[in-house]
């Protein structure tokens, strides 16, 4: 049932203690939105789960297996994929090559180049274009498609709507909905509260490196989340 389990995780950037004793359980098929102000430690948490950042304490297990010391590429092989903040495409590789890089993980499944192009039709005419020449929305679609190419069991999405035009954000979320309906487990970081509450089954709010509020998106009111977001209701937070 529990796909990802994070126990008392600590992560630092030098002197900055970005993630403090965070515990989090993600069930198979769940969609969790991580919200919180800038610098709350959301991105660091995702990067630590994906293996791009080494934790200073705590434990991460995936599908019952301790992965705390596993390098990033081996976590991908187990089925964890991160769409990093800022997309981080390989600028000199074409869209097609960016997608096919992910076959290094050796995870076969539903997602192939053809399936990604089916899900993101806007990429079809751009296959042989260099990633650097794409617009923000096209790059984001490629970045999500690239992560999907590893056929993940857990997809981590970091600020997928950042810097995109509202119309494009709409498109990105429409494809996310399709993924959620297909049963993909997702943890996403999102600044836009309405969107986060709209797409997620559970919301986790972080403040200064800690989880200050957690609950089903239907159970939590906007006000509760907002006050936790800004640290106004520390005493009442769960």
């Amino acid at each position, binding site marked *: 049932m529990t796909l990802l389990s994070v126990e008392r995780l600590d992560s630092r950037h030098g002197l900055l203690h970005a993630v403090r004793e965070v515990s989090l359980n993600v069930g198979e098929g769940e969609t969790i939105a991580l919200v919180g102000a800038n610098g709350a430690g959301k991105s660091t948490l995702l990067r630590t789960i994906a293996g*791009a950042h080494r934790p200073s304490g705590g434990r991460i297990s995936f599908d019952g297996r301790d992965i705390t010391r596993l390098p*990033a590429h081996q976590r991908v092989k187990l089925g964890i*994929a991160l769409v990093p903040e800022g997309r*981080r495409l*390989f600028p*000199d590789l074409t869209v097609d090559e960016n997608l096919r*890089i992910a076959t*290094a*993980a050796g995870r076969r499944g539903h997602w192939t180049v053809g399936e990604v192009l089916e899900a993101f039709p806007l990429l079809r005419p751009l296959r042989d274009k260099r990633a650097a020449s794409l617009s923000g929305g096209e790059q984001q679609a490629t970045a999500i498609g690239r*992560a999907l190419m590893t056929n993940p069991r857990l997809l981590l999405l970091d600020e997928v709507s950042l810097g995109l035009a509202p119309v494009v954000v709409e498109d990105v979320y429409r494809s996310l909905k399709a993924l959620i309906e297909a049963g993909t487990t997702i943890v996403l970081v999102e600044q836009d509260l309405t969107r986060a509450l709209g797409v997620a089954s559970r919301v986790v709010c972080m403040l200064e490196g800690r989880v200050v509020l957690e609950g089903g998106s239907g159970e939590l009111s906007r006000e509760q989340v907002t006050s936790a977001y800004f640290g106004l209701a520390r005493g009442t937070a769960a």
Partner: protein
Amino acid sequence: MINAILHGILLGGLYALLATGLSLMFGVMRIINLAHGSLALVGAYMAFLFMEHLHISTYLALVPVLPGALIVGYVLQRTLLERSLRAGELVPLLTTFGLLIVIGNLLQYFFSPDVHSLPSGRIGTASWRVTSSVTIPWFDVLILAVAVVVLGGLHLLLRRTQLGRELRATASDADTAELMGVNARRVYARATAIAVATSALAGVFYAMRSAFDPFSGATQLIYAFEAVVIGGIGSLWGTLVGGIVLGVAQTVGAQINVQYFALGGHVVFLAVLILRAVLQAGGLRVLPRGAGA
């Protein structure tokens, strides 16, 4: 003069072959491998050993030497260079400098400081006589052809295969490549393996063309380095152009005065550096993107 230019172009093949591995390692890992010339010499000495003990031709000696060089490169990366890379940008430079000295001394210990040379067979002495003043030596044509094949093969590898995509992706952003399931350390090790194999190949051809001693590696490193810089760092076909430009500069220099052979190359190298610096002030980039552009 035509003869000098022609020979320069052909000599460029050897320099390009020698520079390929240097260019690849810098393009992928940002390592300037000061031991590159020495590794080429190790290839030459190994070929010498096989030739002596198995009584085979130098060409046949390449059959065991090249796979051996691949293994040496792989192990070198996984043991020494990987650690150095983690310690900071300048550490690999020191490590490879140390390697240059260690290799030179080991070769001297095992093979004596005497000059050796490898036989190049019948091709080594044959040439076409085009006119009374223009001749084309077969062996140099062979080296140029090998250089073109190696560079072309590497180009195809980088463009058409999964390993190539992984190499280019890792060169541009190793952290993100890891997040896509690429084992960056293994990719690095494979890049070094290929680089050392091309250097061994170049070393054997160099040794068939001229006499060598345990410390010839340093001179060859300088020529390879000049070829890489002239051709544009990290660019494969640029390396071929760089090698040819360097070769022509040297033979034309020698045409003016026999002592100006190396000087001709150095002058062109410096001219290109200065020209780059001037153009760069006008907004051009220092480093081209990725390997194999």
